[in-house]
């Protein structure tokens, strides 16, 4: 037997060792390669989710209402800090509270989380210190008006939407998050490496609302002033374009600071007399009454179906038009007896009551409209007076829009368009008529009634000096839990159509539980006037000024020549002119802000509706003709026809305040 020499043994041992190494390497690289690669990746790289910035929400003019931006949250590990002096100086520069700075540099403390969020560029030096751990947080930056938050909603600290448009449109606003793959060192700190990667997250789409920021601010300001001066529990203002169904402004306010919901869609109320025009429309539409048909109103007090019903405006008899003008409870109940319960119910249902409008806002209420088989003996009369039925402010505005636009119930919408982050159009809202509720002629008749409400009815305080405004006031008792209707607790409301001939706005002002005064015509109507005045003075408040320039207007007689160029216009009766002149003079000399101070002292305007003959103006100049008609107590509408005749003709008896058409072309 030959034993190998020592050199051979060493060679063999080395060879075996090499083979073992190769085998182990092959095992690690080939057989278990994937597992070890994964382990190595996990050690060398850090994967994280990068949230996409939420898309902005814009107003109808493209102004940003809410946008996302990054802020930095800082956590400090005091034990890891090397230069405590420098850390303390930088923390002071970042306006951190002294008590927190003391803890942040105390080596006995393990971890300090700073409650404030910082702008990254303000804390670059601080964030680069050892022991300071920065975390980026996406935050929503709101527009200036606080009330807009009730519409756009809020986003929680974790980036999840809580309410409003943020919640309803989350699918398009949130965008697509992505993953980040960054190399880390042995201590787990991130380091830049060509092997790391981060794909850019896809930002969310932008949502453009129909809200006009200027008008929204005007409404919020008017509501705040009214609520404060009336010591009201709160209120709502909604402005809608009756032709398109676009919601232009939606302001809400509650004395309880925790009430942050959009109450214009979530909190229904009993509308009171603002419901009467719908009953009048039903009567006209079905041919059950005429606008000039007279009914007994028993000097403002009578018993109907065993129930005492009273009127504020005491009259022996009123026409249907005057029932709306003076908001007669007796009149509307007596007229409504010509409608069956089913017809009343169907009328209100067709105007959209009892059904949510479908705007993309969470918690929208349906309101309450019970079917006739659930009514009791007095429900029929209660409902026509605006009780036993509840509506949201938005529902009421949408229903009045049907009267304003000629009879079609338009679908209210809040989202105008949606565009991707790249600017591509994803969705654009189009006006959509839900149904025709009343005919155009009925709508015109009801608008004429609403015009009289403001001209000489219960809401003269909304009357504008230059433009005709239609509207209806409402005053309804409020209920309290367990107490039923409470004495002295009211909802005062007013719905206005501006301008009256071709409305561009339907404005609802609702004041909850006002003190001192409570009639809708006294306190809600003036707020409408404040809103309209400010909107007319604003540069961009979603008004079609070209149309306004030719709208039917009340004017001073001295400016007839210029008006003749404007086409069909109307002139004010002398008393309205005087009021306008006095108001203008006061405003011109006033040094302070010109706003309507609330509560208003009632100055009831004497209503002189006695009939008188139309004066003969043939042969007079246009200016003198208009002046003569004004002096006779008529309003004037110029019609572009040759001649100087009037319609009705000279000598015909006509009620004071009626419109006389006057030909004005020579």
């Amino acid at each position, binding site marked *: 037997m030959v034993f190998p020499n020592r050199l051979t043994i060493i060679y063999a041992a080395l060879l075996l060792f090499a083979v073992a190494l190769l085998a182990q390497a092959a095992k690690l690289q080939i057989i278990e390669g994937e597992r070890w690669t994964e382990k190595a990746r996990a050690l060398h790289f850090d994967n994280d989710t990068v949230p996409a910035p939420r898309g902005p929400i814009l107003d109808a003019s493209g102004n*940003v209402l809410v*946008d996302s931006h990054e802020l930095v949250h800082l956590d400090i590990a005091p034990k890891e800090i090397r230069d405590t002096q420098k850390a303390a100086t930088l923390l002071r520069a970042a306006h951190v509270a002294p008590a927190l700075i003391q803890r942040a540099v105390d080596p006995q403390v393990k971890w300090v989380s700073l409650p404030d969020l910082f*702008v990254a*560029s303000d804390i670059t030096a601080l964030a680069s210190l050892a022991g300071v751990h920065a975390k980026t947080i996406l935050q929503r930056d709101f527009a200036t008006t606080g009330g807009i938050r009730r519409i756009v909603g809020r986003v929680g600290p974790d980036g999840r939407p809580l309410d409003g448009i943020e919640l309803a449109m989350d699918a398009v606003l949130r965008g697509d998050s992505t993953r980040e793959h960054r190399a880390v060192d042995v201590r787990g700190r991130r380091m*830049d490496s*060509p092997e790391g990667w981060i794909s850019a997250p896809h930002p969310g789409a932008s949502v453009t609302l129909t809200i006009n920021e200027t008008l929204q601010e005007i409404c919020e300001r008017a509501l705040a002033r009214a609520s404060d001066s009336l010591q009201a529990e709160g209120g709502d203002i909604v402005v809608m374009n009756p032709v398109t169904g676009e919601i232009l402004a939606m302001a809400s306010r509650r004395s309880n600071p925790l009430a942050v919901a959009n109450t214009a869609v979530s909190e229904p109320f009993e509308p009171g007399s603002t419901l009467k025009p719908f009953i009048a429309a039903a009567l006209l539409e079905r041919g059950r009454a005429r606008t000039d048909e007279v009914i007994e109103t028993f000097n403002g007090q009578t018993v109907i179906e065993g129930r005492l019903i009273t009127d504020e405006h005491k009259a022996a008899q009123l026409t249907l038009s005057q029932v709306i003008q003076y908001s007669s409870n007796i009149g509307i109940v007596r007229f409504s007896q010509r409608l069956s319960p089913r017809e009343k119910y169907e009328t209100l249902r067709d105007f959209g009551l009892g059904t949510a409008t479908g705007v993309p806002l969470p918690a929208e209420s349906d309101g309450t409209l019970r079917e006739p088989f659930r009514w009791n003996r007095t429900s029929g009369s209660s409902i026509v007076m605006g009780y036993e039925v509840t509506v949201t402010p938005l529902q009421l505005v949408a229903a009045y829009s049907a009267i304003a636009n000629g009879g079609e119930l338009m679908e209210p919408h809040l989202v105008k368009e949606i565009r991707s982050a790249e600017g591509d159009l994803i969705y654009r809202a189009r006006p959509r008529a839900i149904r025709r509720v009343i005919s155009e002629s009925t709508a015109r008749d009801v608008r004429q009634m609403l015009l009289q409400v403001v001209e000489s009815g219960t809401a003269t305080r909304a009357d504008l000096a230059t433009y005709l405004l239609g509207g209806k006031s409402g005053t309804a008792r409020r209920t309290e839990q367990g107490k039923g209707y409470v004495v002295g607790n009211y909802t005062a409301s007013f719905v206005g159509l501006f301008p009256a001939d071709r409305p561009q706005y339907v404005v609802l002002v609702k004041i909850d539980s006002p003190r001192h005064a409570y009639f809708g015509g006294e306190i809600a109507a003036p707020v409408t006037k404040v809103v309209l005045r400010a909107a007319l003075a604003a540069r961009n408040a979603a008004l079609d000024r070209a149309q306004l320039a030719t709208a039917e207007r009340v004017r001073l007689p001295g400016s007839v020549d210029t008006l003749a160029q404007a086409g069909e216009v109307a002139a004010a009766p002398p008393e309205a002119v005087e009021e306008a002149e006095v108001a203008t003079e006061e405003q011109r000399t006033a040094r302070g*802000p010109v706003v309507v101070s609330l509560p208003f002292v009632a100055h009831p305007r004497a209503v002189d509706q006695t009939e008188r003959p139309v004066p003969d103006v043939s042969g007079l100049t246009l200016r003198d003709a208009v002046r003569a008609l004004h002096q006779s107590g008529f309003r004037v509408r110029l019609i572009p026809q040759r001649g100087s005749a009037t319609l009705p003709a000279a000598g015909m008896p006509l009620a004071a305040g009626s419109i006389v058409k006057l030909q004005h072309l020579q």
Partner: protein
Amino acid sequence: MAKRRVAVRGRWIVAAVLIGFVITTAAVVARRSYGDQVAREMSGTDERLRELRNERVRLEGEIRDASSRARLVPIAESRLGMHLPAEDQVVILPRQARRGGIP
């Protein structure tokens, strides 16, 4: 003599291989260092870009806030004594047709 010449040539080959290895390694290290440096610069630039974008959003928000009606109207009323015009002080002129042109 011939054996010695072969040994010298072998050493040159080993040296050349070693030099090649060193050069290749140096190139790989240099490339990696360059890559790291570029990655750092890109990361820094990205960070700066994000900061600037945030700064822009913040400043736009501040401009919006400062130029909004909610901020300006109270100041105009209290400091300058201005007031909103009454509706009859606002005159909207009808658009006139252009002479000889399309109305």
